[in-house]
């Protein structure tokens, strides 16, 4: 590691990138972030003058789908992000180094650049049994997470695991897996939920931090507003069929072939905040609804507990061992109320007419 951190531009020129290619890269990045053309200059200036951002990327309880998504980013290319925009000093699934030398980065970088590096967390820590359900490099992940986060400038929570808990935190959550904001409470945390998040959203968040040297604007739940500001439903290309009331009634019916709305098949688009219907996946090729399958709501909190995936009404009461929809619970309550009313009415009638035998006799 050089004493002075190299700028992005230094690195790119050293790798043989021409000035022309560099400026094209800046324009593309500006476009990918949805900025006006004038910002290409700002990005170029930032990359020429600012040192590369040290990033430590830690993995807890997770499936690595976030990394798998990340490396498929089309604009900017994941390789451009890793090799030119940031200085990825630790990532146990991507780095070549291994063993004690690799683990050293987790102590060296925070000591060398306190308050300047970004900690990216994929997965989450389990708290049960003192964190013994997730051991990396011989130590509980939760301990390492606390240590590395202590001097970080900011923390990125990659995916549903780090942001909300995801499958390992679904009921009954035996390992007590928790989202990282339950462990890291004194640092700004950018939540980039999704299972996995969209590749361009991941690289877009990093590009933004690097370009503007600040965190993107976050919504009330800590997600970048530019990617999570609207629901899938709001920008879904099948929305006209929803408003018309044209729904797919069963898989492979005529409506499904005509591309009608998947609302009745349990699509979670109306309750899911993500950029899938605009950014789409795999370089804009498609996204679940476009391939005829409803949204699972993977970027929402508790998405495993809000099932079933193929029904509009969610099950409630899984915590109590019974699963029922709002209509089943409410309908039962209303039925009990009606039965109670009928029974009370019958008893009242009996009482009313049996209580006054004398009055009735007197009337005769």
């Amino acid at each position: 590691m050089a004493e002075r951190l190299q700028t992005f531009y230094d690195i790119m020129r050293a790798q043989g990138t021409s000035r022309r290619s560099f400026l094209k890269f800046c324009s593309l990045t500006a476009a990918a972030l949805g900025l006006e053309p004038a910002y290409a200059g700002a990005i170029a200036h930032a990359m020429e003058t600012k040192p590369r951002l040290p990033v430590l990327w830690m993995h807890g309880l997770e499936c690595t789908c976030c990394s798998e998504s990340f490396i498929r980013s089309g604009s900017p290319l994941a390789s451009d992000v890793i090799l030119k925009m940031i200085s990825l000093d630790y990532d146990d699934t991507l780095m070549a180094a291994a063993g004690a030398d690799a683990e050293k980065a987790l102590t060296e970088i925070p000591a060398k650049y306190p308050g300047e590096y970004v900690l990216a967390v994929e997965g989450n820590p389990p708290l049960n049994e003192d964190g013994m359900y997730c051991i990396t490099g011989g130590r509980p992940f939760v301990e390492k997470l606390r240590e590395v986060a202590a001097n970080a400038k900011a923390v990125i929570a990659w995916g549903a695991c780090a942001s909300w808990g995801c499958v390992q935190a679904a009921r009954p959550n035996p390992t007590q897996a928790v989202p990282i904001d339950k462990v890291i409470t004194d640092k700004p945390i950018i939540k980039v939920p999704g299972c996995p998040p969209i590749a361009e959203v991941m690289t877009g968040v990093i590009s933004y931090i690097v370009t503007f040297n600040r965190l993107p604007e976050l919504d009330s739940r800590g997600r970048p507003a530019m990617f999570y500001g609207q629901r899938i439903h709001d920008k879904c290309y099948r929305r006209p069929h929803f408003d018309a009331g044209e729904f797919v009634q069963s898989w492979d019916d005529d409506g499904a072939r005509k591309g009608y709305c998947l609302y009745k098949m349990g699509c979670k688009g109306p309750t899911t905040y993500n950029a899938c219907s605009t950014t789409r996946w795999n370089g804009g090729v498609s996204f679940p609804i476009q391939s005829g399958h409803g949204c699972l709501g993977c970027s929402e909190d508790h998405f495993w507990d809000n099932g079933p995936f193929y029904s509009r009404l969610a099950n409630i009461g899984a915590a109590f061992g019974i699963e029922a929809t709002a209509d089943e619970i409410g309908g039962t309550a209303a039925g009990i109320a009606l039965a109670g009313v009928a029974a009370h009415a019958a008893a009242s009638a009996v009482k009313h007419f049996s209580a006054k035998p004398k009055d009735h006799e007197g009337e005769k």
Partner: protein
Amino acid sequence: MSAPAPHANGTGVVKAPVYVYELPVRIWHWVNLFAFALLVVTGLLIARPIWPQLDGEPYHLYVMGWVREIHFVSAYIFAVGFAVRVYWVFVGNAHAREIFLPAVWSCAWWKGMWTTIRWYLMIDREAPVEVGHNPLAQAAMFLLFVLGALFQIVTGFALYGEGAGGWSARLFSSWVIPLFGGSMEVHTWHHLAMWYILVFVIIHIYMVIREDIMSRAAIVSAMINGWRMFKDNRP
């Protein structure tokens, strides 16, 4: 409004009628009924669009759009009515406060509650006479209707703000959605609370009809003309 003339019921002159429900309260009651009925029907249709398969150019049809539009307009009427009714708690007569601020601090209120429960359990032979709502009705209306309606208004505008943006997004969606954990949870609770109010409606309609027949005062007509009329002259 002038009082209806006291009338005889065969056993002598009855107690003079009392003006209980002022005009705004009565209008609110019936507007509520209308809005709530529309909200229940359209709400159930939004949760389960059960109509047969539709076909054709989407811009010729706006079925789900209209169902949702009616739901939103009824919701606005329901919410504005609720706001006006809360205002009336402060400027209306004493009876206007009963279901919003039941007098749980008063011994007499609890005593009345006990008397009412005994009457409903058919332990007592004679109905207690109440000018306004009896304490049990006050408690039920506060817990089931007032709190239920407030819950529906808050969660409803939070869900509305998700799509509509603007003030409902700022005032409601911004904190309600995170509070419940997510949009799906708010939908589920909003749906459950509809049933909660519906259970109230079932009990309310039954009780009103039962009391109109079995108690010693007129109940149903009071919400139409505002006057509580009594059937006898005993305390």
